[in-house]
């Protein structure tokens, strides 16, 4: 038999069958390639503890509330993933979201501008601010740490200026916007249908990829393994939807967040742009010499980050039914950054996935939600969230050292 193109070298062992896959996974974890493992383990521990302390934590309606809360900061964290991927940081996302929230109040409520135009303006202003950060970095060599720190103050000032003397603008109850942020739930049939889609896509794409690989004389995964994976994913998603449907169901706002995560995941893993992002984060000079427009990549990442932060601010205005001076202040900034890092996006650049925003924000909001249920003050919440962030960064650092010593970047 002709050896396959990627199996011709006899020195390399390849995992075969189920036990082989498990062993390969264990080897990966041991060498420090942890992926989403720490956050999944962490989430399991947090949920177990909170459920033991207060059984209401796991009740369907509390989880639905949790998902509403996740969506606003989660969208901001998704933007943070983009800049962290390049080894950069944006410390101004909290203020940016505050400006986005204030713009909705001023433009839509006070000036009577149509809602889509107001939202578009907020997102466009975010993109503009991001372009400024990237230009400061590209042209003047200003570290993003400093430029976004000054942006944090400047944007906070802009937010206070726009809101004026009253300091807060209420969004009309009963408007679509506020309903979207507080009430709107996917119809049951739609949420079940959407839960089926990932499994089907997995199966269809996986089968066609395997067929193409075999045709090209490359090794291909087994159809059985693919089928089992797709079925398990579908069962898990259906179970989640069924459980949430015991309460109010799946919020539209969370569906929007997940759709953004999936779009970002596709862009980061399946497009040239995403490949360039990882390359610039891993070795910017090598990327430049390979002909990648490194400045363009920086601009796109900072624009996306600030635009998503502004969108997160718009969503939080809908969630709170007001644009206030408090929007985007306090822990929003650090929660968004912490979510990305806790979810497994490296602070050192070059590693990360869109899903880390989703997983990370669920961890952060679970802590906030659980402590609120226990009637604990926000002082304690800050301390515990801070400790979890520290642990996440320590895990990231240790895993990085382990990867280096095991010959994995």
């Amino acid at each position, binding site marked *: 038999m002709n050896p396959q*193109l*990627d199996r011709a*070298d006899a*020195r*390399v062992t390849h995992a075969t069958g189920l036990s082989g896959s498990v062993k390969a996974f264990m080897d990966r974890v041991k060498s420090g390639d942890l992926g989403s493992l720490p956050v999944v383990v962490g989430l399991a521990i947090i949920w177990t503890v909170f459920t033991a302390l207060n059984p209401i934590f796991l009740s369907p309606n509390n989880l639905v509330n949790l998902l509403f809360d996740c969506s606003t900061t989660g969208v901001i964290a998704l933007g943070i993933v983009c800049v962290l991927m390049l080894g950069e940081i944006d410390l101004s996302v909290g203020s940016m979201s505050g400006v986005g929230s204030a713009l909705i109040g001023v433009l839509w409520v006070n000036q009577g501008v149509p809602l889509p135009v107001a939202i578009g303006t907020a997102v466009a202003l975010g993109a503009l601010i991001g372009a400024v950060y990237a230009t400061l970095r590209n042209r003047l060599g200003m570290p993003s740490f400093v430029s976004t720190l000054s942006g944090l103050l400047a944007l906070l000032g802009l937010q206070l200026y726009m809101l004026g003397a009253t300091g807060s603008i209420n969004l009309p109850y009963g408007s679509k916007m506020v309903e979207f942020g507080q009430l709107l739930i996917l119809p049951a049939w739609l949420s079940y249908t959407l839960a089926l889609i990932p499994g089907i896509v997995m199966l269809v794409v996986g089968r066609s*990829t395997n067929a*193409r*690989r075999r045709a*090209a*004389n*490359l090794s291909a995964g087994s159809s059985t393994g693919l089928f089992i994976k797709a079925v398990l994913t579908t069962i898990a998603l259906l179970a989640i939807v069924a459980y949430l449907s015991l309460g109010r169901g799946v919020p539209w706002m969370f569906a929007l967040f997940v759709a953004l995560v999936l779009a970002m995941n596709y862009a980061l893993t*399946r*497009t*040239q*742009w995403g*490949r*360039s992002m*990882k*390359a610039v*984060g*891993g*070795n910017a*000079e*090598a*990327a*430049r*010499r*390979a*002909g*990648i*427009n490194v400045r363009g990549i920086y601009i796109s990442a900072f624009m996306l980050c600030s635009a998503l932060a502004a969108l997160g601010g718009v969503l939080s205005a809908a969630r709170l039914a007001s644009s206030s001076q408090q929007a985007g202040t306090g822990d929003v900034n650090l929660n968004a950054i912490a979510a990305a890092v806790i979810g497994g996006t490296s602070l050192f650049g*070059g*590693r990360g996935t869109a899903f880390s925003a989703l997983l990370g924000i669920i961890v952060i909001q679970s802590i906030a939600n659980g402590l609120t249920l226990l009637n604990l003050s926000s002082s304690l919440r800050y301390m515990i969230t801070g400790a979890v962030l520290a642990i996440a960064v320590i895990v990231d650092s240790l895993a990085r050292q382990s*990867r*280096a010593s*095991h*010959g*994995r*970047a």
Partner: protein
Amino acid sequence: MSDRSQTRKAPGELLLSLRGISKNFGAVSALTDIDLDVHAGEVVALVGDNGAGKSTLVKVLAGVHQASSGSIEFQGKPVTMASPAAALQLGIATVFQDLALCENLDVVANIFLGQELNPLRLDEVAMEVRAWTLLNELAARIPSVREPIASLSGGQRQTVAIARSLLLNPKIIMLDEPTAALGVAQTAEVLNLVERVRDKGLGVIMISHNMEDVRAVADRIVVLRLGRNNGVFTPDASNQDLVGAITGATDNAVSRRADRLREAAGEPL
């Protein structure tokens, strides 16, 4: 060696022509008035001591640095290489001494970096097949193209870097110390490859400190010294002449040592 130089074809079309290239880094002039011609189907070796300006010259040609003054003609037309992308576009591919690979990406991603097939929906299968084809042409010993570069040895990384430079079917390829990190067999493979590339009608610019490698494949040997041209030699030139041009003196440590050995062996000077 003399057989080979007789069977050598006359060099083809003039591909690249540098006139009066200078490059200053602040007060330091790394290159001064460099002239260099490269024809199709010819291997030009750039030799010189450390700090002679070889790597700087390669970086100017690769678009990494811009020359402070002087003109570059490519296929008879004056060109400027404002960026690495512009140089690649013209058909000048470079394998840098530090290889310029992204350690966090796998072999396929590195070979296709910046040149991915189907930008909006990456064609991983076609890229993997092409990667294996390129690597097999180099008789490469890469265990898996889906491992990150960080897990490969120095020689394997060199092979990946060379495979990457061939991806775009360039007209000229520049190799900066291609054999420095390689074992005996891989060195021979790379030299074979250099000849194969030359026979396909490409121009090759090779930097090396290893005179044996240079003599084995070069058609012309261009010596740089302290950032200036210091003579052009054929591979038949004597070691003494070459070393003299490189170090700037006929009386130097290398030739004194050779003389001493010959004297000890009782040969006439």
